[in-house]
């Protein structure tokens, strides 16, 4: 009976210690993750919104990316989170675009749901200009931003991704390469071409 008593005491003594360690580790990870997600969520939303041109779809993509990062990569080193997160986000954006394409094709075969097929993914009310009077600078900035978003949306996906990750999110070349799943040289090429295209299209707003 002594053996059983020793075993039981060892087992019950182990559980609270492990439980405390697990709790502390979980709290630390959660704080780090929360800080990271809070840092990137707005820019991530804007990147998804520019690519998808739809607020709700962009929010869904960001939420999916957050969930997938937390579910699969929470235990990875914190410095890897940004490239992983933006890679996941780009996959979510592509998934949404594919679903839109498939849905559009299916709807085009169904003439009695033509109204749904013709539905514009972007909310026209959100795209409409605010009728309230605004200072001239805000109007100009708003116009410049709209032109920039349109030009970014028209870029090839890889160029847009390289430009936004490098210039907007501020990732370095290596981190951008990890996020895009390509070489650093490819990132530089995509970024350079995006910059040239945007300058050619938007020069009137800045020059």
């Amino acid at each position, binding site marked *: *009976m002594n*053996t*059983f008593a020793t*075993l*039981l005491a060892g*087992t019950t003594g182990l*559980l609270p210690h*492990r*439980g405390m360690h*697990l709790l502390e*580790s*979980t709290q630390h*990870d*959660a704080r780090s*993750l*929360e800080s990271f*997600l*809070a840092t990137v*969520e*707005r*820019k991530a*939303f*804007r990147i998804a919104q520019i690519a998808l041109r739809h*607020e709700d779809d962009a*929010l869904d993509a*960001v*939420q999916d990316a*957050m*969930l997938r*990062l*937390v*579910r699969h990569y*929470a235990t990875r080193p914190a410095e890897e989170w940004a490239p992983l997160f933006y890679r996941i986000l780009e996959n979510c954006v592509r998934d949404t675009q594919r679903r839109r394409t498939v849905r559009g094709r299916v709807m085009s075969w169904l003439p009695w749901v033509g109204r749904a097929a013709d539905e514009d993914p972007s909310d026209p009310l959100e795209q409409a200009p605010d009728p309230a009077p605004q200072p001239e600078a805000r109007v100009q*900035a708003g116009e*410049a*931003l709209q032109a*920039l978003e349109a030009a970014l949306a028209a870029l090839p996906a890889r160029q847009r991704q390289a430009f*936004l990750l490098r*210039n*907007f999110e501020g990732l370095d070349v290596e981190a951008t390469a990890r996020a895009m799943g390509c070489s650093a040289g490819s990132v*530089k*090429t995509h970024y*350079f071409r995006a*910059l*040239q295209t*945007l*300058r050619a299209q*938007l020069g009137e707003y*800045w020059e």
Partner: protein
Amino acid sequence: MNGEPDPASAEFARRTRELLEASAASLPARTRSRLTRARYAALGQHAAGRAAGGRALWQRWLPAGAVSAAVLVMLLLLGGPPPPPQQASVTGAAGGDDLELLADHDALALAQDQGADANGVDYEFYAWAVGAAQEEAGNSGAGVGT
């Protein structure tokens, strides 16, 4: 393309960055709220997953520990198989014979007599006895003759 953009491109990049950052900083309250809820949902899932993982760890080992403890208890209560009694008596008899042999000097001398063959004939003894008799006879003859 040498990796370093020209000053005009660098200025263009700076202005686009400022414009995009301003737009991200001035998101509508509804959008910010939904982003916050999405973040909390993700973190909630993370916490739930870790807690479930921790529970699964000790829940996985608890039945094994209980079964092991039960087996130990049963073994201790029932005890091991008793030793065969015959083996103990044989060992005891052998030990008693050894002690008696060591205590008896004559028996020990007989036990140490390794010259006898299977029929009990000790040829070395007889050879020695014959040799001793001849030697004695030779000694007697020499003494008579002289």
